[in-house]
């Protein structure tokens, strides 16, 4: 069904201009996205149960990167931000950047993150 692009009618063009209809991924792409999300989650949980990996310096960065990848995949494909209008992208990424900056700033402020050794 979703494998075929919709016919370009006048009404469809009107709706596209209003941001209502846009090209979406196909069912096969949705299926692959779901599979990738599942595999990343399985790997994350597996990593949690490997003591040597948990104790290593790569544990937290690896989990954060995998989480960010899952986040980006859902936003790009399921929320269609990759295919959507630039204004929507700006409305989401702007506050997201502020949110990330807030978290990082607060973690520095309360000494959860530090640069260099304590003096």
């Amino acid at each position: 069904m979703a494998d075929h692009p919709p016919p370009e009618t006048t009404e469809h063009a009107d709706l596209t201009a209003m941001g209502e209809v846009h090209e979406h991924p196909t069912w096969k792409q949705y299926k692959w996205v779901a599979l990738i999300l599942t595999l990343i989650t399985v790997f994350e949980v597996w990593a949690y149960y490997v003591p040597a990996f948990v104790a290593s310096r790569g544990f937290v960065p690896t989990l954060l990167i995998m989480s960010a990848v899952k986040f980006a995949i859902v936003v790009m494909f399921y929320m269609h931000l990759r295919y959507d209008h630039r204004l929507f992208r700006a409305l989401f990424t702007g506050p997201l950047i502020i949110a990330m900056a807030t978290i990082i700033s607060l973690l520095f402020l309360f000494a959860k993150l530090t640069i260099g050794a304590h003096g």
Partner: protein
Amino acid sequence: MATAALPHSAHPATTTGLDHRKVAIWAFIGSECMLFASLISTYLIYKGRSVTGPFPHEWYCPDTHVPTFCPGESAGHIVHSMKPILNIPVTSQSTFVLLMSSLAMVLALAAVENKDKPLPPNPGLGTRILSSSKLWLLMTAAMGTTFLGYQAFEFTSFVHEGLTIRSNLFGSSFFTLTGFHGAHVTAGVLWLLTLLAIDVKRGLGPKDALIVDISALYWHFVDVVWIAIFTLVYLIR
């Protein structure tokens, strides 16, 4: 306004050329990002600063107030020690359910958008299933409800194991963060059930794609917030 002259699915012209409702939902999602950022940062700042247990990942002895087994106890012999509170296998299942609910949601939206398209002659079961918006809306709401059931189970077991919102800093920040997320999931489930009721009553078609799209965006946002919470709260020690 001359809205009567417009096509049934179009809206009055806007300065951006975009529908105001979709602009509004993205602005709302942006503001929600900042709300959850504040809750997540609060959790992270308080992490590891609780002076009494239970703790998320460590054993705790309520007799000695030390984050380890009580004297004379071990993993095979526990009398007073409180176990690590987070149940990763259960939460992993609920995470999987929420991820799959997002797949069901995109299929519901695709089914609504393609409802006017004729099905191929002798459509197979798979084609008929994929084109049923009612089924996918119901599936999404059911999986959202299942996630809430997991959360209710988790909260109940935590309370039985001695962790409440008043127990320690971990309890306060944990219940506030996950409770806010659960409230958002609850609102999403009610929204989906409303759409399902409309679909059952009069049927949702391509002209309704926008309202389904807006609810889908909200639902996926709830999902991405959980992706962050699952890693930051449950997996990172």
